[in-house]
């Protein structure tokens, strides 16, 4: 009798099975992880900005000092200026490029799409170095600047435009790829001009994509560190100020203050972006007719020329660094040699640094995909714990709003504190891996969620009712189906770990120097050709890994993703069940 009573009582609320409890435990672990690697360091940073050098609380004194130093305050203005100008230029250029890729019938679309993505493989220091070779006082084509100096805002904006271009093209291509042909037919029927159609149909339909692209361009523009460091000259911006305060003068408190100031515009952008995205409604309904671009010789030709010019510039900037890295002594001895690749004789850590970067990339990709995919799985597939899953989701999105410089500095404060039990991680490869995962957490998390959402929840329900433990469903169904997405996450983390400078610049130790930081240090010493050489090594490595990834994904697609193809399912269904 008692047994039945208990059973009845629990049946009113769905019982927490063992699976649920295990996954609940997993959620707690993930929550604690994100709390420790994102929120606690940020708290340490914030509190540091209210302390003096000896750690005493002094209220807003540091901030008052900051606003009393005109040189520092002017950086804030510079930063916003750079962000806005870069945003306008890069989004305009990328919009036309994406428009050509999606709405024209020009040839070589695949090629142009590939070229547009190339800058992702390089650290943002690389375009800046190339610009020095192109437009510096001894530049190859400095006449094109008509006497203006490349050192300063002009150089920063061009370098950033190169580096941010792929991110905006990707967003805008997605936004422009889906369109309802019926609207365009209506426009033609109403005899609206092409221009009018563009402003009344195309733009409104893509406004969310354009806004996203703007937010991304602005955020990357104000938070990047590599480009202004190399080519900024006297034009100070916030990210470089943080570095200057911390590495140049060991004024950690002021570094924290500048970080908090940089955090403001980024967080505001982040919040606005979230609010805007929430209002987005589906553009495509079941009754939509997909828009197929129609050939138009003049238009296609213009688009082809435009894309060729842009592609030429992108490849040109890369080629300049590649070429310069082989020059014996610019500009007086132009014979070619491998001298600049003798990194052991230069600052920055030599070939060891390159090895460390690859190790960092591999470890970050491996542990990062594991943690991030696991976290996304728990958020998406666990039942119950609704509120808690929401919190976890928030923690996973948050890193997007934290600039690398700020996160890196926050990590020093948090992990270098002798009272912190995690102090042993300081100056190890471990802290670099953790920091890189935390820094780039959000995008892979969203990728993983998208992949997981494609799997019907019924898989879990059926497994649960058949008393198949969740980990079996995970390893037999969820994991194989999501494998391409997991590989995407891995490659994303690997390439970012290879190219990032901002977060890790504060965290490397004597035994964990990195290739990207070596580029920075060699440029600092005036060794610009070896800096170009190391930057190119990073590009070659990420490109190789990217190609491997494409090959691997193709192979996997054939083996594990066959179910996505209709005919296979038909075949399988039509055949007798295997015995």
């Amino acid at each position: 009798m008692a047994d039945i009573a208990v059973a009845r009582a629990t049946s009113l609320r769905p019982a927490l099975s063992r699976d649920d409890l295990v996954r609940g435990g997993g959620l707690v672990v993930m929550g604690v992880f994100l709390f420790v690697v994102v929120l606690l360091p940020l708290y340490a940073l914030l509190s540091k900005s209210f302390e003096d050098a000896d750690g005493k609380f002094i209220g807003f004194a540091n901030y008052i000092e900051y606003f009393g130093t005109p040189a520092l305050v002017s950086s804030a203005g510079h930063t916003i200026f750079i962000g806005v100008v870069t945003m306008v230029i890069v989004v305009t250029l990328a919009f036309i490029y994406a428009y050509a890729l999606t709405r024209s019938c020009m040839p070589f679309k695949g090629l142009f799409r590939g070229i547009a993505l190339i800058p992702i493989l390089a650290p943002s220091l690389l375009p800046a170095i190339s610009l020095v070779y192109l437009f510096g006082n001894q530049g190859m084509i400095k006449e094109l600047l008509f006497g203006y100096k490349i050192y300063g805002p002009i150089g920063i904006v061009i370098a950033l435009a190169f580096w941010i271009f792929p991110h905006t093209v990707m967003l805008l291509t997605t936004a422009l790829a889906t369109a309802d042909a019926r609207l365009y037919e209506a426009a033609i029927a109403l005899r609206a001009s092409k221009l009018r159609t563009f402003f009344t149909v195309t733009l409104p339909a893509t406004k969310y994509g354009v806004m996203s692209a703007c937010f991304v361009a602005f955020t990357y523009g104000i938070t990047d560190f590599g480009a202004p460091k190399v080519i900024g000259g006297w034009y100070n911006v916030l990210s470089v100020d943080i570095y200057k305060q911390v590495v140049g003068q060991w004024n950690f408190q002021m570094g924290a203050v500048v970080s908090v100031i940089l955090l403001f515009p980024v967080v505001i952008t982040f919040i606005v972006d979230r609010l805007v995205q929430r209002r987005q409604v589906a553009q495509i309904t079941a009754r939509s007719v997909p828009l197929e671009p129609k050939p138009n010789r003049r238009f296609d030709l213009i688009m082809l020329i435009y894309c060729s010019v842009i592609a030429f510039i992108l490849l040109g900037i890369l080629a300049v660094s590649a070429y310069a890295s082989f020059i014996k002594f610019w500009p007086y001895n132009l014979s070619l040699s491998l001298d600049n690749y003798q990194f052991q004789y230069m600052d920055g850590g030599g070939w060891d640094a390159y090895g460390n970067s690859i190790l960092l990339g591999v470890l970050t990709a491996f542990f990062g995909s594991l943690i991030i995919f696991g976290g996304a799985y728990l958020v998406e597939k666990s039942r119950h714990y609704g509120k808690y899953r929401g919190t976890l989701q928030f923690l996973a999105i948050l890193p997007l709003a934290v600039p690398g410089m700020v996160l890196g500095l926050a990590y020093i404060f948090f992990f270098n504190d002798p009272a912190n039990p995690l102090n042993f991680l300081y100056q190890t490869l471990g802290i670099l891996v953790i920091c890189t995962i935390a820094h780039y957490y959000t995008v892979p998390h969203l990728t993983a969620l998208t992949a997981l959402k494609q799997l019907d929840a019924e898989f879990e329900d059926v497994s649960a009712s058949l008393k198949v433990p969740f980990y079996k469903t995970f390893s037999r169904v969820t994991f194989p189906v999501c494998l391409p997405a997991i590989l995407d996450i891995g490659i994303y983390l690997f390439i970012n770990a290879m190219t990032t400078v901002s977060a890790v610049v504060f965290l490397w130790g004597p035994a964990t120097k990195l290739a990207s930081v070596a580029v920075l240090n060699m440029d600092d010493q005036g060794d610009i050709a070896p800096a170009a050489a190391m930057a190119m090594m990073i590009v070659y490595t990420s490109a190789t890994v990217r190609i491997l990834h494409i090959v691997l994904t193709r192979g996997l697609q054939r083996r594990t993703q066959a179910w996505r193809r209709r005919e296979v399912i038909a075949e399988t269904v039509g055949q007798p069940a295997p015995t």
Partner: protein
Amino acid sequence: MNTSCISLRIHKALAVVVAAFLVTVFSIPPAAADTTLTVYTALEAEELRPLQDAFQKEHPDIKINWVRDSTGIITAKVLAEKANPKADLFYGTSATSLLVADSLGLLTPYAPKGLDKLDPRFRDPRNPPHWVGVDAYAAVICYNTIEAKKFNLPQPTTWKDLTKPVYKGYLVMPNPNSSGTGFLTVSAWLQMMGEKAAWKYMNQLHQNMAVYTHSGSKPCRLAAAGEHPIGISFAFRGAKLKQKGAPLALITPEEGVGWEVEASGIMKASKNKEAAMKFMDWSITPAAMKVFNDYLPILARPDLAKPVKHFPEDTQEKMIKNDFAWAAENRKRILGEWQKRYDVKSEPKS
């Protein structure tokens, strides 16, 4: 198609990968029982490998972990870590920096074997000395002859010359806050001209300056590449660049040049004092001097010094009477004053 079979295979493959990872990750750390010295230094990067190789020929059981940065940065690092020092040796940095560290009680006095053979200018006068030098480096003006012809820039022979309007926008020098060369140059001006005149001089110089760089090497590299034709730097860098074929003239100004000892001391907090002492002893042996002499002509043991190609020959007699103690005592004040006056023109990372 048998999906479970595939997933099983993926599963196995994954397990292998995981295992391989864990093995690599956990097998990297401590492999040897050898002593590893952590050495904070401002020596040039290319010197470190030959120095280490020569040292390990005699002491194969002592490994060296170099932490290299410019003088200002490495000094700041030592000061910042004063509560919990990470270095065993503070090595090949300016005597001024060592005196600053010493004033905080971070160094252990030590008399290395063979101390009596040293030029007395190259050691701390106290007994036992708190720091010992190995060689000296001096400031120099790197002057790009090709670009100078292009822009009609006459060759300067004195510091005073550099304030002439003709050089406006063509000069670069290192920021003394981060660069040892920058500081020894500023300190020499202050000692030679007297404070008031020196600051006035620097005000005029500031008008001509294109940019202040973070490192002491960079002005000469920029001059060598013609990016900025005249750079205040140090002779070693200029000689190296000339050897590579840079169209440079290295000028030692008539008034005299600032110079610094590359000095070393043992950190009080070092847990490897015995190995650190061995390294200090070795540093003033003929074998070590030979390595240093490959880079610099002015050694702590003048009996062993040979001239080095491309170095200006008159450096030795132009070296001013340098008061390291004064420089160390006033360092903070000088740097603060400099920053207040000129930092606007500083390159990122000052």
